[in-house]
């Protein structure tokens, strides 16, 4: 298996505060890693470090064997939806095309290949029929699918998702995970969330992040990891079949 992303003893400092402390992870091909942790625990910072938007103060980040900034065109990024102005005059097709900006290059329009990639990405998330819709005319789940399509249009080898379920109502979440699981056959996925229950059966590796990363290389979390990350006793509630990230535990 080839290495998609590797972080070795990475520290990130933000104006005197330590956001990430000695974080090491390895993400391999076809990995689907869920990273959970409290708000402010450094989850978005971790994703931005992988994207090269933030320079680590110590440690080494290598994405696809390159520096993060050089690799970022082959990384699909889905930011939190709250960051967007839903009234912005842009339709679904234009959002998806944005994924091709890096490939198209400056001073020229989008090529036929760019359009084909955007079209394919929209088909993949089943949003091709909504191409001409304005983004405000979509439901939260549909908006999230369009953002995933934009990330897919870059033809990524690694997909980064920041709180992807926050905008998706719970009835739609299953379909969403199935989509991610399908995408996972072609690319590695890292998903971060503050919500423990967001980690489903499709997630293959689970880690906890609260400045430090707690990870044992399996799909299961221990009570100790969770408590260390959330810094308070965590009550483990396993939801039966779909959520089998938590070990069997005495009640």
């Amino acid at each position, binding site marked *: 298996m080839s290495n998609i992303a590797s972080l070795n003893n990475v520290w990130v400092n933000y104006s005197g505060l330590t956001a990430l402390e000695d974080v090491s992870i390895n993400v391999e091909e076809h990995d689907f890693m869920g990273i959970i942790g409290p708000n402010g625990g450094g989850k978005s910072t971790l994703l931005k470090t992988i994207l090269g938007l933030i320079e680590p103060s110590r440690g080494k980040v290598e994405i696809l064997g390159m520096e993060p900034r050089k690799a970022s065109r082959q990384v699909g990024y889905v930011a939190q939806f709250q960051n967007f102005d839903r009234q*912005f005059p842009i339709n679904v097709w234009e959002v998806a095309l944005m*994924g091709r*900006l890096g490939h198209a290059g*400056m001073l020229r329009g989008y090529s036929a290949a760019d359009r084909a990639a955007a079209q394919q990405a929209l088909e993949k998330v089943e949003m091709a029929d909504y191409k001409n819709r304005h983004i405000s005319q979509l439901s939260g789940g549909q908006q999230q699918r369009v953002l995933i399509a934009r990330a897919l249009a870059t033809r990524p080898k690694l997909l980064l998702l920041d709180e992807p379920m926050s905008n998706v109502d719970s009835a739609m979440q299953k379909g969403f995970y199935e989509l991610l699981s399908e995408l996972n056959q072609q690319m590695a996925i890292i998903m971060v969330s503050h919500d423990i229950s967001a980690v489903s059966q499709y997630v293959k590796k689970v880690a906890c992040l609260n400045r430090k990363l707690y990870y044992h290389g399996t799909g299961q979390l221990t009570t100790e990891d969770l408590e260390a990350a959330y810094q308070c006793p965590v009550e483990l509630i396993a939801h039966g079949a779909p959520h089998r990230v938590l070990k069997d535990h005495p009640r």
Partner: protein
Amino acid sequence: MLELLQYEFMQNAVIAGLLAAVACGLIGSYVVVKRMVSVSGGIAHASFGGIGLGYLLGFNPVTGALVFSLGAALLMGTVTRRTRLSEDASIGILWATGMALGVIFIGLAPGYAPDLFSYLFGSILTVPTSDILMMLVLDSIILVVVVLFYKEFSALSFDEEFSRVVGVPTLFLNLVLLCLIALTVVVLIRVVGIVLVIALVTIPASIAFQLTRSLKKMMLVSSLLGAVFTIAGLWLSYQLDLASGATIILVSAFFLVITLGWTKFRRFRQNV
């Protein structure tokens, strides 16, 4: 109105109004969707320093305004990144410092500054042909740059972080966009004046924002609206003997209120 067009000053006024409409349609749309209204106000007011310098050293004040507004744009784009000043604070500081420089320069200039008022509040009826040419050149630059970087500017306005991730040079393009705002300010100075520039940049684009859902259409609609407002304001101010710049702005604001009311009414009817 038509018989008035045989006068050269009236022809120049109409041409100046149309040229202003192009700049405020293209750049005003970015200013509104990217929320750069106060930056634009800052750049406009800072350009007054250049007007004053023109009076002091005896060159065309509009050229001075061009240099100062470009300088202010570049400073606003870099100061926030290099220092701990917030964008908000640096806008306010450059805004007032530019004005203060202008006041001092004009005070130092010998004699009385005759048409100072026209730079502050516009005077579309006295635009000389040389300034028309300058406006034409600036409009062309704005149009060419917007066409060249259309997809990047739009992406940057919608989602700067993602644009950066996929390799768009966002720092550089933000500076270019600020410089285009500076050029727009200069195009508009003769028409509505430094103090009122901000209204012509924002009002037509804000009306277009209510009426359209695509950036290209928004640019087209706001350019057309800008043309209608400047010509209508020009005609009205001539008929009623009012200040032209202020009349143009009030006509625009009137139509903004009408549009807002109409879209509210339409939404209300849809819900009933």
